[in-house]
């Protein structure tokens, strides 16, 4: 859809970059804003990661080593909030900013100033959130799910957490609106919806999910705030409310939210595997419909997070069966990725290695999810380390590995330089081995009955906790390799070609030079 109808002349010099700090503070360029998002996400990844390492240090052996339980709970709560809202979501938005205009043949995002607004809200929101560590009573300690009545017993950190979440929500909604409008209104002529690259498709559906559920989270935390400070009784049975109602509203947001954290990852993997298998993606249409089906199902499965809360039997049955349905479209995706590689001329460059690790390890997380979906079995697993192992498998070697795969795939396009392949391989192998050492033993701990969200544990859990902590520290410190690699690649390196990857690199982003021009496309390219 070209904006062929124009009636004003502009004197933009398309290769002129604004200079100085103003380029970043007042940015309207999708690449600059994308870079800001990605760097912010990287910073938050290390802050959240430091919290995770503190947690693993405490759990290295039974007894209390370093922290009192209250501070441990704050670390745990903040780790989740920082990683979800500060690392994974902004990283995906950063990738969307960089890649969507390049992939659809647009000069920029549709609403560049709102784009900058949605980025700059984030550093302030996290300043608010993390400053709560210095208030009376310490940081938020009721878990990122903020269940009342526990969350209502927090100290002065409580309103800071709530208002920080409001700001993150506003940022996400603006970012999502921008993605939808860009994809729907800025596509190059001839790029019909079913020619859209899968990264754009998955982001489009993710954006719908964001707009539908972030306001629901805003409503839920607003009710918490008024229950705490203004005497309402939403979650207080004495006033006729119900604390379980919070869990329903929260997970109505929360389950689509976990797909918000994974659907763009599906898109990234669907871009990378065909390139390095040198075959077109198997079942493109099926991938699109599977993504849409997953998004639809995400709205009707939320109470599988609350099987043990005391729901009517009909509720347990419905949410168990609807949850199992998700395995079908997800199975379609895993099948199609595998079929894409069938008889392909495979090579194993770093992006492909990360994508393959994603495929195997995300599927492990998916299968443990199916186990958790069985309501009677979940009564055993609920609130144990099995749940922790499950969602970390889908989020770390799932979402985070996909983000790393994307960086390794597109970094030469961004910087114009190839990166150090040897270092990237080291990063991959150390990360992949250590992430399994970190999280796989947590399955055993959970099945043996170790509860989650607790700083101390019974001595029979010691061995696997030690293994897990060692894996955690190796994984954490191996990410320094990633930073070194990015730093080197930005500074210099072998010149990257336009296509970067010789195989079947497909899509408009490979038709522009590396590094991509400041305004990606001056005129809409023709797509056939």
């Amino acid at each position, binding site marked *: *859809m*070209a*904006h062929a*109808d*124009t*009636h*004003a002349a*502009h*004197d933009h010099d*398309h290769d002129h970059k604004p200079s100085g700090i103003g380029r970043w*503070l*007042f940015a*309207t360029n999708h690449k600059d804003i994308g870079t800001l998002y990605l760097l912010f996400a990287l910073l938050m990844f290390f802050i959240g990661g430091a919290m995770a390492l503190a947690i693993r240090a405490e759990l290295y052996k039974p007894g209390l080593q370093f922290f009192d339980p209250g501070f441990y709970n704050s670390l745990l709560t903040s780790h989740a909030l920082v990683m979800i809202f500060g690392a994974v979501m902004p990283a995906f938005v950063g990738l969307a900013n960089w890649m969507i205009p390049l992939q659809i043949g*647009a*000069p*920029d995002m549709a609403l560049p*100033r709102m784009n*900058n607004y949605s*980025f700059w*809200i984030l550093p302030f*929101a996290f*300043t*608010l959130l993390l400053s709560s560590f210095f208030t009376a009573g310490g940081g938020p300690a009721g878990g990122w799910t903020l269940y009342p009545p526990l969350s209502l017993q927090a100290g002065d950190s409580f*309103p800071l957490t709530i*208002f920080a979440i409001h*700001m993150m929500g506003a940022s996400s909604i603006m970012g*999502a609106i921008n993605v*939808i*409008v860009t994809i*729907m*209104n800025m596509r190059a002529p001839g790029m019909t919806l079913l020619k859209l690259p899968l990264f754009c498709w998955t982001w489009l559906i993710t954006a719908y999910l964001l*707009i539908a559920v*972030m*306001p*629901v989270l805003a*409503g*839920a935390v607003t*009710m918490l*705030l*008024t229950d705490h*400070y*203004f005497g*309402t*009784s*939403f979650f207080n*049975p*004495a*006033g*006729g*409310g*119900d604390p*379980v*109602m919070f869990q329903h509203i929260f997970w*109505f947001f929360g389950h689509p939210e976990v797909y918000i954290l994974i659907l763009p990852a599906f898109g990234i993997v669907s871009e990378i595997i065909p390139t390095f298998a040198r075959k077109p993606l198997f079942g493109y249409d099926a991938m699109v419909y599977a993504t849409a089906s997953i998004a639809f199902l995400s709205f009707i499965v939320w109470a599988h997070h609350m099987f043990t809360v005391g729901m*009517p039997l*009909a509720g347990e049955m419905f949410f168990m069966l609807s949850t199992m349905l998700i395995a079908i479209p997800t199975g379609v995706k895993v099948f199609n990725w595998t079929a894409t590689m069938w008889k392909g001329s495979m090579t194993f460059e770093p992006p492909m290695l990360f994508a393959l690790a994603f495929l195997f390890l995300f599927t492990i997380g998916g299968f443990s999810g199916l186990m958790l979906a069985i309501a009677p079995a979940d009564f055993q697993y609920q609130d144990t380390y099995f749940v922790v192992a499950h969602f970390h498998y889908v989020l770390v070697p799932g979402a985070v590995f996909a983000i790393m795969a994307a960086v390794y795939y597109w970094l030469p396009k961004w910087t114009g330089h190839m990166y150090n392949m040897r270092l990237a391989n080291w990063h991959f192998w150390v990360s992949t081995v250590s992430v399994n050492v970190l999280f796989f033993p947590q399955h055993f701990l959970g099945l043996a009955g170790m509860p989650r969200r607790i700083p101390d544990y019974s001595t029979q859990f010691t061995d696997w906790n030690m293994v897990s902590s060692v894996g955690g520290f190796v994984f954490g410190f191996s990410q320094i390799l990633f930073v070194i690699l990015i730093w080197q690649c930005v500074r210099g390196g072998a010149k990257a070609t336009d296509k970067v990857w010789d195989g079947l690199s497909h899509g408009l982003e490979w038709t522009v030079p590396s590094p991509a021009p400041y305004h990606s496309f*001056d*005129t*809409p390219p*023709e797509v056939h």
Partner: protein
Amino acid sequence: MANAHSNDKYYIPHSSPWPLLGSVSLFVLMAGAALTVDGSPMGSSVLGAGFLLLFALLFFWFRTVVNENQAGTYNLGVDQSFRMAMRWFIFSEVMFFAAFFGALFYVRELALPWLSGTGAKHLAGDLLWPQFGGGWPTNGPQALGPKGDSSTFETIPALGVPLLNTLLLLSSGVTITIAHHALRAGKRGVLKLSLAATFILGFIFVYFQGSEYHHAYTELGLTLGTGIYGSTFFMLTGFHGLHVTIGAIMLLVIWLRVMSGHFTPERHFAFEAVAWYWHFVDVVWLGLYIFVYWM
């Protein structure tokens, strides 16, 4: 397709300080709100500063956009982007209200029956408050009087001021449609009058809503703290009233722009966006009237 006018194909706005300053103002506002509810002595001044900054920011940002638009820099593609963005923004607002309507339905259909000892989860009522009847409206079992009833407050009858307010908002929906037709037909006089009528009706609605709140607080014993009825009633109608206020201010701004000669019969996105917003506020009110006041 490359030609001398290739830059006209797309419009890229120049960089702007407003997004960053918008983030700063939001930060001051939110920090002020947090300090206020935590009881900090400097809370209210930070909160006030936050509001001032935000209003100033909105004024300057919108002024920039209006000026650029008047200078003719926005092409039809930009217009289309604005339209789509506004629609999705309104959808996000719908979902915000859905959370509160969902709470109302959940409490009335599930939580209260269980608390009163009926339904699948009747044990809650049986064990906690066996004498609680769970009818609607209720302020919950904590307020059980000596006779086991909880009718220590009165509700606002649907047929009084709320019905009048319904008529006011529906009429404003008619007047804004008249204004839109007049704008498209180039009848600026009708446009000015009916747009003015629209925001005046909106402000009258807000005034009546305020007086109803006053009545509820001072005479009916109905407050935000009146159990789950007070919670759902004031949060739903309160957020709606806030949206009517914002919508009426938006209408007023649009009216001032009409008075300054802005908008053409073909190009008037801001007018339409505000009209959509106004209809959204109208529809939410109908939901409130049915489910909060009437049923």
